[in-house]
């Protein structure tokens, strides 16, 4: 077990370097000069442009910039923004907790409602409830998320007035409810579909027949035997989804004015704040790598046949 974890941690190093390098290169081929853009459509001042570029290390060759960046990163230094000269770590520190909160809420929602719907549909396969759940999940997947977001904002925020249309305080759980629902909707549909399929398959398995033959109570059969065995694909999905939820909330955060990573990213892209984009992706990749390690370890818990040496 310990050796397995150590090996996995070692494997993460090249992946981490590769991902940061890839995003670093991608950001650097973007058109538009961020320093010049500070002046908008007014003529820039060449002396100032040179000064700012020199100050942020943007006048160095690309490979040197990357080395500098990685060197700083090891010491926890994410660099400074081009506009405003603020430490990027401050921006990330401010945005991440907000996104994490939103992501965890959406994730819990996926987990609870998704699995519940999936079990319901899987157990009653082919019945009315199954068809309803299947239809619902298909609809959710086939409608773009921004259409949902705007529609729900209009209905609950403006017409019914149950919630404020946008989030006033990004640290308030109650206000994050609606955006979390929108964010988790697609994942919920996938979780429900996965659970349904797994349950439907495992229902035919031998151990289930044994359990039924033994006369175990139905409740116990479903939770102890059926669900536990059906959860592997669901856990896999949910494990990797937490990273996606944190980084993929650009749309939801934009619609509901949540001051999280998605918005920070979107603005950084528009302002060509390359270091901010790379910084965020760096943290997201770490979250993702750790999440997938935890998922793998969870396998052993769910399925005793899997052992890590």
């Amino acid at each position, binding site marked *: 077990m310990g050796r397995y974890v150590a090996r996995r941690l070692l494997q993460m190093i090249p992946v981490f370097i590769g991902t940061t390098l890839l995003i670093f290169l991608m950001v650097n081929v973007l058109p*538009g000069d961020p320093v010049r853009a500070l002046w*908008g*459509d007014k003529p820039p*001042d*060449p002396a*100032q442009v040179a000064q700012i570029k020199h100050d942020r290390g943007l006048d160095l060759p690309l490979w040197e910039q990357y080395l500098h960046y990685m060197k700083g990163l090891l010491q926890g230094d994410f660099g400074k923004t081009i506009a405003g000269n603020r430490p990027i770590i401050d921006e990330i520190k401010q945005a991440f907790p907000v996104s994490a909160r939103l992501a965890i809420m959406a994730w819990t929602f996926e987990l609870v409602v998704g699995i519940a719907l999936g079990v319901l549909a899987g157990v009653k396969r082919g019945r009315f409830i199954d068809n309803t759940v299947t239809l619902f999940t298909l609809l959710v997947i086939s409608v773009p998320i921004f259409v949902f977001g705007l529609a729900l904002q209009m209905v609950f925020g403006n017409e019914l007035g149950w919630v404020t249309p*946008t989030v006033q305080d990004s640290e308030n759980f109650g206000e994050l409810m609606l955006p979390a629902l929108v964010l988790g909707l697609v994942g919920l549909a996938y979780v429900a579909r996965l659970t349904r399929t797994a349950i439907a398959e495992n229902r035919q398995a031998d151990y289930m027949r044994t359990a039924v033959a033994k006369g175990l109570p139905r409740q116990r059969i479903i939770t102890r035997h059926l669900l536990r065995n059906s959860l592997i694909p669901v856990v896999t999905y949910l494990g990797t989804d937490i990273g996606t939820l944190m980084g993929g909330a650009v749309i939801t955060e934009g619609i509901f004015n949540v*001051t999280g990573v998605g918005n920070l990213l979107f603005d950084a892209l528009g302002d060509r704040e390359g270091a901010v984009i790379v910084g965020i992706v760096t943290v997201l990749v770490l979250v993702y790598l750790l999440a997938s390690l935890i998922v793998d370890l969870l396998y052993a818990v769910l399925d005793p046949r899997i052992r890590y040496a």
Partner: protein
Amino acid sequence: MRGAKSAKWVAIAGVVALTATACGGGDDDKGSGKVDPKGIVSYANGEPQNLLQPSNTMEAYGSVVIDALFTGLVHYDKQGNITYENAESVKPSEGNKVWTVKLKPGWKFHDNTPVTAKSYVDAWNWAADPANGQQNSSWYRDIVGYEAVHPAKGKATKKAMSGLKVVDENTFTITLKTGIPYYAYKLVYKPFFPLPAAALKDPKKYGEAPVGNGPYKFSKWDRKKMISVRTWPGYKGADKPKNGGIDFKAYNKDTGAYADLRSDKVDTMPLVPNSEIANFKNDFGDRAIEMDFSAINTINPAFYTKQWKDIDVKVIQGLSMAIDRDTIAKTVFSGTRESATSWVAKGVKGYEANTCGEYCKFDAKKAKQLIKDGGGVPGNKISIQYNADQPHKDWVVAVCNSITKSTGVKCVGDPVTDFAADTEIRDQKKVKSIYRSGWVLDYPFNGNFLADLYGTGVDGNKGGFSDKKFDKLTAQADKAKTIDESAKLYTQAEKELQNSFPGIPLWYNKTLSAYSNNVKNVEFDQAGDPILSEVQVFEK
């Protein structure tokens, strides 16, 4: 709200009390009707790009906060005439070369240190020094000795501009390289604000908690959430606030701000989102605001391309006549824009309607004829470049449709992802055919829309346009004795543009906004800035 940021890049202070002739303001009968002089106004804004330093603030989010905290020497009224604020007088010498500024005595900064001639001169010299990284420093370039402090290349040789001289505590002089009759207008802009001595000692700390001389005192800055300013009792200016302070709330999207405005969660916003221009009058009734905004939209041929290099002006005139501005304004813009008939926006000194003559009127037949007479559009196809991060697509498509329908010239939109990329393409002179351009006033003087945009080789002239006759006329206007005379000569120069057509005027912009049930007396000036000190808040 990224769009707003670049749409109105430059925003000039709006702290002057205007005569209440405008629409929209009106008394409101909602709420208790009683005004609370200590009530706080919330304004939908965004996170400022830089620290809050006047000489380092260009974009709209920072500008509106700076304007609340500072009061400059002069400002202007609705007609574009200069008004004195912190200055008692600003007088030019013969030939407009040496300007003498006299301050109103007794003014103080929020930290209770006096505002003196030195507060101005030191602040400007500090900001001109490239080592201090102030973005607006090129605004001092008319002053004698600027190059010694701020050379384009190499090390600075001096720390102070020789053209600035403190005469006594309340008087200083500005010596310019050449006479500029309308120089007082430039003094409205933020880099010409004063700074207290403490600010120059620790600029960073000061930039996070600025101390100004304006109607409001800085209270706190909750990053990316809110900036609060409160009414400062020691203010000496005429525009004493009628409310207790302003909360500038940071929004990422104007649609979010609009949704909040509808449910009274925020009191007003700079510009309603594009998706709501058809609805905002219904949503807000008499609380909707529609006011003139001194900005103009044009589409300009890139004269450095093969297509436009040796073009007969008749072709451009023809394209201009092929655009049905009125119908597009009525439908696509839901009647919230006004067809342009000149190259200068409304609300600035020297504005005159119809300088474009018949060429800005829609006439499909004549348009077709003119293009034919001029030898046609090379390739019979044009594209209009625009930035897709702002709501330009709708009107570009409509303009293209109009041109194709009236003349048969094929026309497509050429969207560029965002403003940064769009600017780069324009700067590098890589526009393929035609580009959209919008200009918001720097100062309300027609020269700002003419010489600064269409003069041969000037920075604002992105299309490589050149008209010797126009250059000669503007040079004469710059040599005029008075502002009025100069404005008149500039109008002469503008009329000449009919014959060389540097760009096709499309529409004059309007400020479209609204206010919540909590407040009244919300107005905007011609620079599109809210006049926050006049807003009154109802008792809760």
